[in-house]
């Protein structure tokens, strides 16, 4: 197992290397320059030249890339052009907020999605199945920014139950305050993801319910709830774990739109701000961070598989 994990991590090196080239090239392919944003509209040519030199933008492309890459390997993602703070510090201050929101959203998604899937799968084709399937399609289809705005209008502006601007309060310091601030963005993301979860798990359950071992379980005279709960569920969850893992990675990597709607201080909003001022090092750092989270989450899901599926053995 350890050897498997080490091997998977070693495989990440070429992936991340290729990705770093992509990230670098992508930012440079976009027209415009951060210099204008820094020096302002009335800058003199000298000021502009100074800034260009200070940022190293006059050096050849490959030299810039190399100095960035060699720094990144050692954990130095450079300095933000805007705030002059180290990029890594900026990202790390946003990480807890993003993780907290991501976990809360996944939790909401599971609470809303799993029961819908189970009920639907037990009575496929029935009226209740069609209604629930309609609901998951709706949850999936409604744009998150629109749902977020609706929720703010209702609970924030009309009822004044919850803040319409969410800030990050660590859950373990102030659970009530954290929940007040988390509830609306988590509900927004959770509703969306519950649609994905419900559809995915329903399909998975329906497939498993046709399996021979289900007939065996029934032939033993087990109660239907034990047939589903003990036999079917565990098998149906195997593919489901993948999708939950990927959605979690997506949320922890920052949810640009939702964070913007709620002005929530996560990675997503950091990235938007960085793009707004063309803060190249910060943009690159954010994207690299999101990428690393994604790949690590994939490894984590694969490792988790070995624990829930006895057939999988990593060597």
């Amino acid at each position, binding site marked *: 197992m350890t*050897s498997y994990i*080490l*091997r998977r991590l*070693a495989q990440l090196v070429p992936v991340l290397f290729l990705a770093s080239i992509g990230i670098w090239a992508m930012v440079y392919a976009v027209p415009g320059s951060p210099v204008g944003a820094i020096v302002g509209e009335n800058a003199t040519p000298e000021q502009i030249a100074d800034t260009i030199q200070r940022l190293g933008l006059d050096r050849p492309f490959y030299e810039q890339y190399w100095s960035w890459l060699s720094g990144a390997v050692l954990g130095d993602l450079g300095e933000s052009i805007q705030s002059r703070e180290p990029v890594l510090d900026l990202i790390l201050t946003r990480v807890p907020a993003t993780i907290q929101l991501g976990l809360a959203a996944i939790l909401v998604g599971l609470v809303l999605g799993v029961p819908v899937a189970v009920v639907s799968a037990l009575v496929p084709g029935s009226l209740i199945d069609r209604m629930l399937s309609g609901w998951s399609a709706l949850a999936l289809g409604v744009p998150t920014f629109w749902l977020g705005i609706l929720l703010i209008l209702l609970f924030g502006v009309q009822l004044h139950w919850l803040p319409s601007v969410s800030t990050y309060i660590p859950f373990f310091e102030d659970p009530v305050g954290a929940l007040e601030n988390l509830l609306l963005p988590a509900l927004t993301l959770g509703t969306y993801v519950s649609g994905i979860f419900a559809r995915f798990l329903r399909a998975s359950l329906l497939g498993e319910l046709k*399996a*021979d*071992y289900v*007939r*065996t*379980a*029934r*032939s*033993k*005279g*087990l*109660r239907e709830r*034990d047939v589903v709960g*003990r*036999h079917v569920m*565990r*098998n149906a969850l*195997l593919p489901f774990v993948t999708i939950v893992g990927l959605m979690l990675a997506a949320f922890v990597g920052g949810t640009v739109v939702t964070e913007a709607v709620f002005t929530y201080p996560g990675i997503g909003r950091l990235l938007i701000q960085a793009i707004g001022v063309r803060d190249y090092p910060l943009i690159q750092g954010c994207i690299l961070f999101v990428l690393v989270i994604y790949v690590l989450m994939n490894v984590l899901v694969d490792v988790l598989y070995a624990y*829930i*599926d*006895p*057939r999988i053995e990593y*060597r």
Partner: protein
Amino acid sequence: MADGGGADPPVLRVRNLSVTFTGSGRDVPAVRGIDFDVRAGEVLGIVGESGSGKSVTALAATGLLPPTARLSGSIRMGAVEVTTADAETLRTMRGRDVGMIFQDPTTTLNPVLPIGRQVIEGQVAHGLVPADQAMSRAAGLLREVDIPDPEARIAQYPHQFSGGMRQRAVIAMAMAGSKRLIIADEPTTALDVTVQAQVLAVLAKRQAQTGAAVILITHDLGVVAETADRVAVMYGGRIVETGEVADIFRHPRHPYTVGLLHSLPRLDIVAERLVPIPGQPPAPARLPSGCAFHPRCPIGRARDICRQDDPRLRELADRQTAPGHAAACHFPDEVQALLAQVAPKAAATAAPPAPDQAVPLLEVEGLHVHFPIRTGLLRRQTGTVRAVDGVSLVVRAGETLGLVGESGCGKTTTGRAIMGLVRATAGSVRFAGEEVTTMAPPALRRARRNMQYIFQDPYASLNPIKTVGDIVAEPLRIHKLFDGMGGMKRVAELFELVGLSATMLGRYPAEFSGGQKQRIGIARALALSPRLLILDEPVAALDVSIQAQVVNLLQDLQKELGLAYLFIAHDLSVVRHICDRVAVMYLGRIVEQSDKATLYATPTHPYTQSLLSAVPVPDPSRRGPGGKGGADRIVLEGDIPSPARPPTGCTFHPRCFRAEPRCAIESPIFRDFPGLPTQVACHFAGPRAMAPT
């Protein structure tokens, strides 16, 4: 054996049972008015082909049919009337009184739960075993079905069990507690013949211990002949004939039963040609009028009464048959004449081919296919799967070589390596004198024109989104010969050649039955006018009556086109029927090879002898006096070892009844056996002198 008029009430009593499926818009009758009883200690064999309603009957008896099924009639299981009982009563009945064994033990067990828990959970759920004793009881149940080291095994998962052990675990599960009825639905169909013998022995042992009634559903007449006390033959949702097993086999009185017996290749009778039942079993949704069998029946095909009137199951009045023997036929007396008329003619000392003069078309020498096992951080090779480990064989023009062995012995890999579909690690494959293993891809493609492969599963080997005409034309197009060989005219010819109508060219595979799909597969393989066909279990997935049709087709094609066949199969009866010479494989090597007559009459390798003795013979009178199974049967212990860790010396020695210390050390050489046209790899090769006991 239970007699028909026993005093005990039957364990299961079915009267006028009909099952109709209503889900798909119109009513599909799956079972149409059947009656039968099963008594304690008795084995009732239900025989039938796909769609005959035999599995539906089993599910109906336990209340496990889906909600779209509509039942009428009566099923009495003890005090419970199954057709009207509520769900809770049925659940209790299933848990306490009925055990079920299904076909494929790889799918009937839940892959993510430990075996022990699955074996005992039904008993625990019904309060028959306290939860704190569950695991020790589970271990005890596994011991009853001869699973070694059960205390350690209960914590393992199904994938850690071999196929035979899984099915024994399922038997342990089904027969836990004091079950009164066991329903076994094709319990050995997915298993190898030596493992089948083990599993049937365990089933009989547990039945003797528990005194349960057993319903054994199967398509295999050999298994029925060996294990059943009474038989019910089903066709088109009805029981068409029923009676004591010996009586049914000796005096069949329904033309379908006669047809089944005659379409079966047998180990004990050599027939020149099988007599298949024409046509195919009817789908329940499209049953013929009158007697459902009349379109395929030599007696009733042209008679109005058979076309219009569905005969009832009536007890026979003739002097030969035993009491309790009933048939649903308007003309049972004529069946007797039919029996003599269409009986397979014994092969009239067929002139043995003169193999020495014939030119070798395919020569395989020392073929090895090894797959590396890689582990660890650096994927170093830490082992080798020796799938094929030194196979040499010769197929001459126009002859059939049978390659037989159990699953995992490497026979399929051998076939694929000959085709170049997997790379040979070592050895040589010469086709018409040319070395194939070292050919460059374009030359290999040209060589493959002359060797074609036919797959086992006709359902999976045809692309479902192409018309069958395109499927058959594809090899011609790939080799850019479509126009050169006559285009669609050629395809139409191929269809006629395999007995299909050229009007079917535009249809899709889903519209064809299994036998027709296999014919399409054969037409595709013949498209390029090959000289050698490698047939990998070509009839294993087909019903008995259809299997006979395809076997006959293959024989006709061989005669007509002068084809050579490499016939890969596990079914020794089919191989005996179709092959000229036979090679027996075990764990990647050929252990014995001879001409057909010699190999079946005088096998010299202990493995060949075990295989042959394990095949159930469809003749109840040959059942041994010691009860079910026969007295001179060799039941091999254990399973085929993994080719990644083959035993030392002779790889068969751990299971061999003749093994001596030398066998564990020294690998035997494959050489001529004096006095016979046989080559064998065994230190103690020789005919079976007497029954080892």
